[in-house]
């Protein structure tokens, strides 16, 4: 009996290498942040909450994440449905090729776009001028109206292939007979989507939406290398502001207070994410 207990306890040792970084760099930092921000409670919290730039950044974070994740989701579903609409190896090839954007260091693609969108020698402006759509170049990344839209679109562009391939794999894992039967019966696409595609994609959609939402909130490379948060903080997010507050202005307490606010939002988002994973429980035996 004792021997079995010892063996059962030893089995947990298998988890140590995976749990070590989580405890050192996730659990411990949470408490560290709380300790740091509550050091002079409520001074740093109040100064953060009363800071108009932080309020703007918080609004931007949520708007960017909501708009960006929704747009990515809709476009990815569209791409997935179109690509799987016929059996074409070229379609699959294109879908896999686009994933290259997701594995390429984000900073590199951000730099390339920064340059292509430059107001004077950027290729995007010149193509638009050649096509006769523009008279003079637009400073896409410095314009108060366009900059936030461009930043959202660039991140949508970067995350779209991941989602599209996820949905393509979801659609391809539906038994072919279902779709064949629906087609033979001449069902309208609306019914196929509602009764065959959507049920199969329900979990991927929930999980992907949350993932993309969080990636938007945590993203720094794309904004830092394109707009740098400007113009007038219109593309500033909590993520970039934590960065600047901590490492440009060295106000660690305020940055910690911002981190706690950001973290609480992410934690709230975690709950539906984890609930969506209930289907994974069969993988474990307790």
């Amino acid at each position, binding site marked *: 009996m004792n021997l079995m207990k010892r063996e059962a306890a030893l089995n947990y040792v298998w988890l140590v290498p*995976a749990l070590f970084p989580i405890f050192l760099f996730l659990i411990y930092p949470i408490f560290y942040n709380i300790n740091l921000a509550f050091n002079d409670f409520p001074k740093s919290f109040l100064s953060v909450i009363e800071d108009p730039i932080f309020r703007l950044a918080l609004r931007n974070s949520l708007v960017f994440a909501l708009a960006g994740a929704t747009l990515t989701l809709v476009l990815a579903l569209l791409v997935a449905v179109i690509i799987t609409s016929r059996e074409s190896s070229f379609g699959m090839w294109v879908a896999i090729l686009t994933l290259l954007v997701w594995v390429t260091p984000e900073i590199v693609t951000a730099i390339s776009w920064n340059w292509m969108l430059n107001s004077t020698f950027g290729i995007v402006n010149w193509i638009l001028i050649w096509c006769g759509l523009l008279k003079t170049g637009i400073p896409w990344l410095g314009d108060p109206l366009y900059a936030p839209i461009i930043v959202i679109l660039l991140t949508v562009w970067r995350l779209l292939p991941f989602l599209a391939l*996820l949905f393509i794999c979801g659609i391809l894992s539906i038994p072919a007979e279902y779709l064949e039967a629906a087609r033979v019966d001449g069902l309208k696409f609306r019914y196929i989507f509602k009764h065959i595609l959507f049920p199969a994609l329900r979990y991927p959609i929930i999980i992907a939406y949350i993932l993309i939402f969080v990636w938007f909130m945590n993203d720094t490379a794309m904004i830092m290398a394109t707009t740098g948060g400007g113009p007038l903080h219109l593309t500033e997010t909590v993520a970039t502001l934590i960065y600047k507050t901590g490492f440009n202005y060295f106000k660690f307490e305020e940055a910690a207070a911002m981190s706690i606010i950001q973290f609480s939002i992410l934690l709230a988002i975690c709950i539906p994410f984890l609930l969506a994973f209930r289907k994974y429980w069969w993988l474990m035996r307790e």
Partner: protein
Amino acid sequence: MSIQPKTKTIYEKMLTVGYYIFLVILLIAYVTPFAWYIFNSFKTTEEANAVPPTIFPKNPTLASWINVLTGQTNIKLPIQWGRWMLSGIIVSSLTALYVTFATAFACYAIAKLRLKGARLILMLILAAILLPGPSILIPVYIIMAQLKLINNVMGLILLHPIIVLPLTVWITISTFAAIPDELEEAALIDGSSRIRTFFTIILPSVKMTLITTFVIAFLISWGEFSFSYVLLRSWDNYTPAIGVATYLLEFNVFWNEVSVSAVIVTLPVFVLFVLLRKHIVRQIFYGIVR
């Protein structure tokens, strides 16, 4: 049996044409930024900054490649691609090695051993997919300072697993759950220890999954920006991603040389991805969908 006429209707033909036009547009949207800096790496500094810009280099030259690779760059600063690539390869390989084994151990324990509280542990790991990011930047910086690992690539090797590991556990666990029990039972009955069985029976049976996990971990570590940018403070210790970022953010005049840097950083990613694309796609996406 089909009762429809064999000849395609105009409507169907238009659908086919539309399908391929759609694919080509998608292709252009995703290839352009890469093509842009590949072309520009072969331009002269004047042409790279020309107004209006050219798409293809008029007089292709290797000048910027030679400048960057020999360190004789137009900006008189220590550009050391050899050193940065070495740092990057060390950080990403060691991170990937740790992550691969830690993932295998954890997935085996959660999917195969009867652990009390396995669900709770998996939930903790899955939650860690969402949580690391700028919100832990300040504490991570302070922890690294206490460990004297600021401006040291060892610090990145310690840190990167938290960014990669939750994702790899997520996409790998279903592979481990699918390993039949009979596989290890026979060996265990013969008196082989659990650890020995794990290494001689379990791991070889999922070899390709482990290689793919290694490559995915390598790629994510290779491109990691937010933390490295704060933790690496001097030119000597940069990783390639930080090298190219600094080049842009501080000296964005020599676009042809920035382009060369971008190509250098992307090249290993291209090679690994092209070699293992089918496995990577299968493991990530069927791992999530399943």
